[in-house]
């Protein structure tokens, strides 16, 4: 039965976005396509997470596999660092994936159909839990396999393998608890609030930041895999004097236990005993987490926690804006209440902050590094237009009846995307200022690149609205229609890259013309895209 419920939830996750409630009036073939899309998309999202895990797993264990650190205590401490890092990363990746899908899980309310059936509460709870676990099945299994395989390659022992297996099980239980806990908090305290309360608005913003942390983590670990593993190793070496304390802290306790069981290095009985005790404690905590998740997820699946707290309504006044501004306000409001949307809105600014951290390794933020930073940030911003268009699909079967011009829609979403990019540039500028690096290139090239990003956004939105205007807007969320996203992002990417590549080429050939070429191309792109949008009805 959990299999049927799981299929239903996967389907609904794509249905609400793609069909906007218009599905019953579609042809059988369309419905079949939607169902197969939903099935493929859910598998795809699992495989992507699995690939991340596999990539990172082998990246952190590479120094041990290659035998580059063979002497005591480096090898032993590297093993501690590798295992601990891998566990921390699995925690991040599974939580990230969980946060994205928990929205569909809560909003589907598919579990409602189970309640009238002749099933006990405990049966329903188990079905919902199994259904929830199925969302993560491949990544959960892959995490365990990657760790055990990598451990096998470094020449692990049976006992060490057992400890590693226990560590990954505990990590997965923690990840599920983190996902469910955050989802529970979001839907009971944040999403259920009214639009008038400033406190709720502030809370939503804070929560968006919390929600983005796993996204930040994913970016961080993928880009800095080697450095993270090294940092963990350094940490274990640096604090060897307070080893007893460190072995009590997850995930180091498992890292130590695995390393000790593998290499049997010289450690005091007290340290080993503390590590075993801490691991046992975390194992017990994980067992409790699973129990808590089983209980809580049943309530989430039934929509039991999304009941809103009702506020006292003083008036019924509204403040109508111009259509484009009304569209932007609506998009921001919806995004602030949906973790998957919110994370994409905040990702560019967070990415800018992460990239800005790398300033410390530069002596000077020159042209090439600035253009590199602009490339990275604009690629993330290019994911926004499809997301913004998919918001239109949430109620397409109604909103399509509104007299909204295509060019108003494109303008509103272009402005919002470009503004998001501008905020990322401000973050970059502030950090450059803070760390005392030159910010000339960020200011000049960044400001000019806004034109290019706006043009790319317009191009994406023109493609999207032309493709989806007739059939209802939605294209699904990032996991549901990844292939569509990629196909739309490629032309956008070409537009943002043309001035960057041209600027780099000009820099090599005629340095003094670099800024002029960059400006000329960006403004031309913007002018062409704006003229095209102006011609839209």
């Amino acid at each position, binding site marked *: 039965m959990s299999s049927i419920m799981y299929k239903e939830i996967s389907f609904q996750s794509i249905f609400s976005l793609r069909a*906007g*409630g*218009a599905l*019953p*009036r*579609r*042809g*059988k*073939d*369309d419905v079949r396509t939607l169902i197969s899309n939903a099935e493929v998309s859910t598998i795809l999202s699992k495989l992507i997470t699995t690939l991340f895990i596999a990539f990172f797993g082998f990246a952190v264990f590479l120094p041990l596999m290659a035998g580059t650190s063979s002497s005591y205590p480096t090898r032993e401490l590297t093993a501690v660092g590798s295992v601990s890092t891998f566990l921390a990363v699995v925690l991040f990746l599974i939580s990230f994936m969980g946060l994205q899908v928990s929205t569909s899980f809560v*909003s589907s309310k598919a579990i409602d159909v189970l309640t009238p059936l002749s099933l006990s509460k405990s049966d329903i709870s188990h079905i919902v839990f199994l259904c929830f676990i199925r969302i993560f099945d491949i990544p959960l299994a892959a995490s365990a396999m990657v760790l055990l395989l990598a451990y096998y390659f470094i020449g692990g022992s049976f006992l060490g393998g057992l400890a590693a297996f226990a560590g990954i099980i505990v990590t997965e239980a923690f990840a599920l608890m983190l996902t469910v806990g955050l989802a529970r908090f979001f839907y009971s305290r944040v*999403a*259920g*609030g*009214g*639009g*008038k*309360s400033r406190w709720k608005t502030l809370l939503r913003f804070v929560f968006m930041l919390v929600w983005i942390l796993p996204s930040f983590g994913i970016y961080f670990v993928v880009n800095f895999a080697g450095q993270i593993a090294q940092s963990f190793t350094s940490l274990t070496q640096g604090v060897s004097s307070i080893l007893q304390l460190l072995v009590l802290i997850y995930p180091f306790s498992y890292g130590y236990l695995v390393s000790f069981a593998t290499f049997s290095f010289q450690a005091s009985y007290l340290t080993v005993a503390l590590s075993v005790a801490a691991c046992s404690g975390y194992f017990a905590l994980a067992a409790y987490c699973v129990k808590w998740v089983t209980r809580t997820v049943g309530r989430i699946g039934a929509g039991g926690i*999304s*009941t*809103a707290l*009702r*506020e006292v*309504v003083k008036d*019924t*006044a*509204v*403040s*109508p*804006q*111009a*259509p484009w*501004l*009304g*569209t932007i*306000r*609506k998009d921001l*409001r*919806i995004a602030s*209440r*949906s973790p998957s949307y919110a994370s994409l809105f905040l990702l560019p600014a967070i990415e800018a902050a992460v990239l800005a951290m790398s300033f410390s390794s530069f002596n000077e933020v020159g042209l090439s590094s600035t253009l590199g930073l602009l490339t990275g940030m604009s690629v993330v911003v290019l994911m926004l237009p499809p997301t913004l268009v998919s918001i239109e699909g*949430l*109620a*397409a*079967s*109604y*909103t*399509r*009846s*509104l*007299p*909204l*011009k295509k060019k108003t829609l494109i303008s509103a979403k272009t402005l919002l995307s470009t503004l998001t990019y501008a905020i990322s540039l401000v973050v970059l500028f502030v950090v450059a200022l803070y760390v005392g690096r030159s910010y000339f290139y960020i200011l000049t090239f960044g400001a000019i690149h806004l034109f290019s990003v706006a043009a790319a956004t317009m191009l994406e939105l023109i493609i999207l609205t032309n493709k989806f205007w*007739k059939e*209802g807007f939605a294209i699904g969320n990032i996991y549901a229609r990844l292939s569509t996203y990629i196909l739309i992002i490629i032309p956008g990417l070409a537009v943002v890259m043309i001035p960057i590549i041209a600027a780099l080429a000009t820099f090599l050939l005629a340095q003094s013309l670099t800024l002029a070429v960059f400006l000329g191309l960006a403004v031309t792109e913007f002018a062409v895209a704006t003229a095209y949008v102006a011609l839209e*009805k």
Partner: protein
Amino acid sequence: MQEVAVQVEGLVVNYGPFVAVDNLSFTVNSGEIYGLLGPNGAGKTSTLKVLVGVLEARAGKIEVFNTPISQEVAAKSQIGYVPEEVVLLDSLTPREFLEFIASIRKLEASAANSRLEKLVSAFELKQFFDTPIAALSMGNKQKVAIIAALLHEPRLLVLDEPLIGLDARSSKILKELVTFHAKRGGAVIFSTHIMEVAEKLCDRVGIINKGKIVGEGTVNELRKLVKSAEGSLEDIFLKVTEQEAGMQDVIRALEEEEKQP
């Protein structure tokens, strides 16, 4: 002479190979309440969706107050629509949703607020005004959709099963509003399965079956069509849609099954 509010000619709507609406034509005049009746899957909702621009027709011509529906913005500005299945932006509150609607329809704040206050009070929605739509009951969601449809004082109201989920008070108010709207020269297209409501409320009805109009006119005109002097609209409907004979057989079969020990 009455102005033609809606003109539908040769409308064809299909979903893949399935033809939902087959060469449908009808006219609605201003000041008129036109009931669109038909069994489930007859093509009523598809027709109304094309009329309001939610769905694309394969063929046919539609004009709303002489504006072709192809002139989307101009045509849609004159229409207020309540869908059969109320799918709104669930994470917004009614206040936020109606603010969005007022923005898209370019309403002045003072005019919008004055009308909104009256409508919210009439449908007793004030206490739910800052509650997310997702947390509202079906009836309250329906009220939000009705207020959104009436907010800009449209010339044409397209109401697809608008009474579903409404309490008795709100149903009564909506019916009064619809009647008042028509008296002021507006037009209404009203789809319902409740024959008594259609009989009392509608000036003319069009009965649609398998995507085609199978009967059209006032109730008296339809009685003549089925050669019945006293039948209710329900009787007429069942005859016109050829459901009466089959229905009796089904009822008889069910009754016999009930009698068996």
